């Protein structure tokens, strides 16, 4: 159930991203819900479960983006590992903490994707697109991570039954 919810959340994130881009032509300023969900997975899921979910979502994102298969998958995986690795050492809590995670995740995710994109795209195009995207993407991710995490947490607490614990 937890995996299904995470997949559903990621899929919804992709759909909303697509919808917003189509409806309002936000393009660079469109909230990258996929990145948001991957970062959230890093703070809530195990290495294995999170990696599987992230790679599946990345694969679906490849389908949505029309990019070469594996590109978004690899990007999602690496972003998940980054988020998971940071979360295992630093506790990102509160609005400011999550903004900080959003800043690191958004910036790294963007440059990570640019680095991966160099495998399949001409250098000039990647650099140009990176210049256009860097500010809006970081602003959007920094804003949406602290706002989106509580929503995802609430969804999970509502739909996923937590294991009962004995209070000693």
């Amino acid at each position, binding site marked *: 159930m937890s995996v299904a919810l995470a997949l559903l959340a990621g899929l919804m994130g992709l759909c909303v991203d697509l919808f917003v881009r*189509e409806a309002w032509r936000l393009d660079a300023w469109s909230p990258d819900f996929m990145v948001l969900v991957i970062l959230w997975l890093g703070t809530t899921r195990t*290495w294995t479960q999170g990696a599987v979910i992230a790679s599946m979502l990345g694969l679906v994102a490849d389908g949505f983006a*029309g990019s070469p298969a*594996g590109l978004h*998958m*690899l990007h999602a995986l*690496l972003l998940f590992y980054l988020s998971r690795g940071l979360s295992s050492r630093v506790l990102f809590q509160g609005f400011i903490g999550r903004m900080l995670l959003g800043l690191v995740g958004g910036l790294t995710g963007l440059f990570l994707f640019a680095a991966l994109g160099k495998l399949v795209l001409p250098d000039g195009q990647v650099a140009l697109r990176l210049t256009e995207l860097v500010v809006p993407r970081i602003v959007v991710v920094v804003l949406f991570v602290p706002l989106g995490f509580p929503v995802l947490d609430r969804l999970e607490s509502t739909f996923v039954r937590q294991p009962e614990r004995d209070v000693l």
Partner: protein
Amino acid sequence: MPRSSSPRRPIVVGLLLIGAAVGLLIADHASTGRGPVSVTLGALVGPLHRAISAAGHDTRALWSHYVALSEVHEDNAALRARIGELEERAASVDGLRAENQRLRALLDLADTRKDLRLRSARVVGRSVSDFFRVLKLTLEVDPQGEDAGDTRGGAELVVGMPVIAPGGVVGQLRSVDGDRAEVLMLTDLRSAIDVVLETSRARGVAVGTGEPDRYAARLEYLQRNEATAIDERVVTSGDDGRYPAGLVVGRVTSVKPQPHGLFQDAEVEPFVDLSALEEVYIVLGPSGLTADGSELQREKAPPSAPTGGPR
């Protein structure tokens, strides 16, 4: 923080997934077109993609229409303002047309009365009184005329000069002060004009009634035995030495024969709409021509300037 059960499992899974992703990338890159995985992915997410795109597109269209509607409101406001402006202009054109008609009538009057020297003036006000009927005039200086260079404007004007309009007699000059003048209307209580009825040739004196709610004059000294008809035109006789003969004063609106005495009562309504006058002519005197503009026979001396004043 949840933890994996086996320490090696995440590494193995991670390596496998990364390997799969890189393999897919290489396979896709190596294929000439889209790789089979890409094609399959496209086929799988295609319907969902299209549905969401369509929804987004519809939302965008709705949004665009909404924005367009707000622009329509702006256009509407601009067009309303434009309509107001055009209506104002149309009203101005109507005013100009009416003025044109009035001035044309004034010119026609000048053309038909070439025997008179006329001077145009503009009505700028009316007396605010229940008893007196006075028009305020401003004189228009003709730069080509006799007053050229005369800033006073009313140099040759004399109190008592007749004032006429296209409909007929308006009254007489009451005072002249520079380029301003006052006209005693024929309906003022102080006004008296020697008149003759056009058909019956009955004579009388048109005296203003001074009534505040209408413009009218009373015919005095109208012989009782004269056959006076309603709607008969009343014109100036020219015998008072002030008004030239033949100027239309008005029409008879009522006749009341008296059982006793020498005279009968009659009332005259001016032809000129005195309530809506805007331009008038002041009759300066005879021009030495006939009414149609031909030279007058020099057998007799020209009539002297009017010397009379208000009654």
